[in-house]
């Protein structure tokens, strides 16, 4: 923890407010993320956790506040948005692989078209990442021929191909069959150890305990409590977090 105080903020979110129509989805969010930090965001459904991280790469527009990602302030400017998106990768709950492309083509798409790499370079790198997530033998198959766990690992490899500085995980294991969750978490643990900045929206408290530098609890569009993993689980301060923990941990422990 001490050493990380020296590192600079890679994401700075201040006074962020977002509405869906009349619905106030995010209320005065302030949050900084340092380079290399692993942040876990949790909270009941509808609490705005996904919305928050989707604001970071501008998949959601927000009405008030500032987000600065690696020195670039998010505005409507398409150029800036693309620049940020090339540095921020996202892994989705439903994988969102491109079903009309083979696995390896899914991986090489962004390097070729966004980062102007040659086909050969991109392919070589793609195969390397597929090996890292342990599915190199599926490279020429199509996404729908793979299991959910495999697809999510491909999705992670796809987002790694553009050498992002930040990775956003939007409930990466929620759509998976139980026996496939650990294979995805294993990959995420490996990544976390590698020193990349990560914000994970997840309900996998085991992962949060083991890997997170900080855990953020959200409810009704606001950050209710944030703490390091040990105190987060041992000494929850707010009633809402206590209730939430009692609900999700009853079956785990």
């Amino acid at each position, binding site marked *: 923890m001490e050493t990380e105080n020296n590192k600079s903020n890679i994401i700075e979110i201040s006074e962020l407010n977002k509405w869906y129509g009349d619905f106030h989805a995010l209320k005065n969010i302030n949050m900084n993320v340092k380079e290399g930090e692993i942040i876990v965001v949790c909270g009941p459904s509808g609490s705005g956790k996904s919305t928050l991280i989707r604001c970071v*790469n501008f*998949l959601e527009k927000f009405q008030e506040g500032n987000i600065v990602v690696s020195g670039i302030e998010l505005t409507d400017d*398409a150029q800036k948005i*693309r620049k940020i*998106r*090339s540095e*921020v*990768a*996202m892994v*989705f709950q*439903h994988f*969102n*692989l*491109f*079903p*009309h492309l083979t696995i390896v083509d899914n991986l090489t*798409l*962004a390097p070729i*078209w*966004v980062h102007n790499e040659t086909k050969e370079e991109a392919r070589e790198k793609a195969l390397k990442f597929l090996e890292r997530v342990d599915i190199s033998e599926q490279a020429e198959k*199509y996404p*729908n*021929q793979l299991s959910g766990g495999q697809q999510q690992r491909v999705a992670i490899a*796809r*987002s790694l191909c*553009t050498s992002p500085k930040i990775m956003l995980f939007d409930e990466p294991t929620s759509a998976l069959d139980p026996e496939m969750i650990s294979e995805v978490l294993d990959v995420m643990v490996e990544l976390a150890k590698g020193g990349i900045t990560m914000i994970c929206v997840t309900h996998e408290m085991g992962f949060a305990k083991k890997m997170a530098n900080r855990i953020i609890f959200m409810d009704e569009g606001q950050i209710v409590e944030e703490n390091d993993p040990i105190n987060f689980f041992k000494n929850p301060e707010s009633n809402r977090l206590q209730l939430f923990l009692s609900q999700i941990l009853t079956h785990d422990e």
Partner: protein
Amino acid sequence: MAVNELQSTRKPPIFQIGAILWLRTNLFSSWVNGLLTLASLYLLYISIPPLLDWMVLSANFNFGTVNILGFEIKFSEVMADNQNCGREAACWPYIYEKLYMYIYGFYPREESWRPDTVYGLTALLFVIVRLVRNYKYKNRVILSLIVAYPIVSYILLAGGFGLLPVVETHRWGGLLLTLVIASVGIIVSFPIGVVLALGRRSDLRVIKLFSTLFIEFIRAVPLITILFMASFVLPLFLESGNNFDKLLRALIGIALFQAAYFAEVVRGGLQAIPKGQYEAADAIGLSYLQKNALIILPQALKISIPNIVGSSISLFKDTTLVLIIGLMDMLAMVNMTSQDPYWLGRETEGYVFVTMVMWVILYSMSRYSRKLEIRFNTENKN
């Protein structure tokens, strides 16, 4: 507690297969189904034999001596004429006599090799596209063919440029004209349709409004009206006035008409693409154009293949309407040739012939679409 061994798989029971079972499950599964089967068989029995009799068995095939690819084939001593052809069955010598008109219209006989070459090139195009499927530079080959083919075809058909004698478009007719109108209509309108479909889903209000207005206006108007407008109203706005080629006017009208239909078909495909695909494309940093060209359209068009081809088939049939603005397509040729005083009263043969030609072309299109669908299906590949 019981522990069961994993069981090996086995073949289905023998009474699940065989011809009798097929008959029972498909044709006689219930009383209603059985009755329907018998009724259908009866309908076939009363319709097929007379038709066969009219078209083949009692029909007149006395073509005289025919030269097919250098071989002299003798069907009869002399070619039958209208009198000795008989009225109770088809008189195919009439079609043979008028075949040139059906295929080329009033295209000069000594230049008929030019449409023939275009037909040949078209077939060649399909063969080449199929052959280069696994070639490294196939995209470049296909793209250059797509650019070259219309230019070469135009020069061949219309002539000019000091290369070939000019054949004015009012001399084009028959199947040639039908194919030109249909293929130009489909090929030109398709990209316009895709752009309109994207426009209608655009976040930019003005573009959305324009696309929606265009599509809804065109779709609310019959093709005949549009052809009339293109033929008679459009020249009023243009300086060249009536010198403006009649075929070109019809083509513009048809292309705009078809573009609106393609736009709606493609929009249907676009709507079927999950939001996650857009988000994933955005998240990896693709631009609007890249996102649509690489991710969204390939999937949307693939789903739309049956409807795109269906719409194209409709257009192909609708091209017969051009006869009302004085273009002599294949169907117009039936009327035209039946005016021949030596061959009065032979419209039926003409219509049957045109029907058969249309059927062969359209059925091939439909089959081709089925093939494309299977080839592009990566969703359920195993």
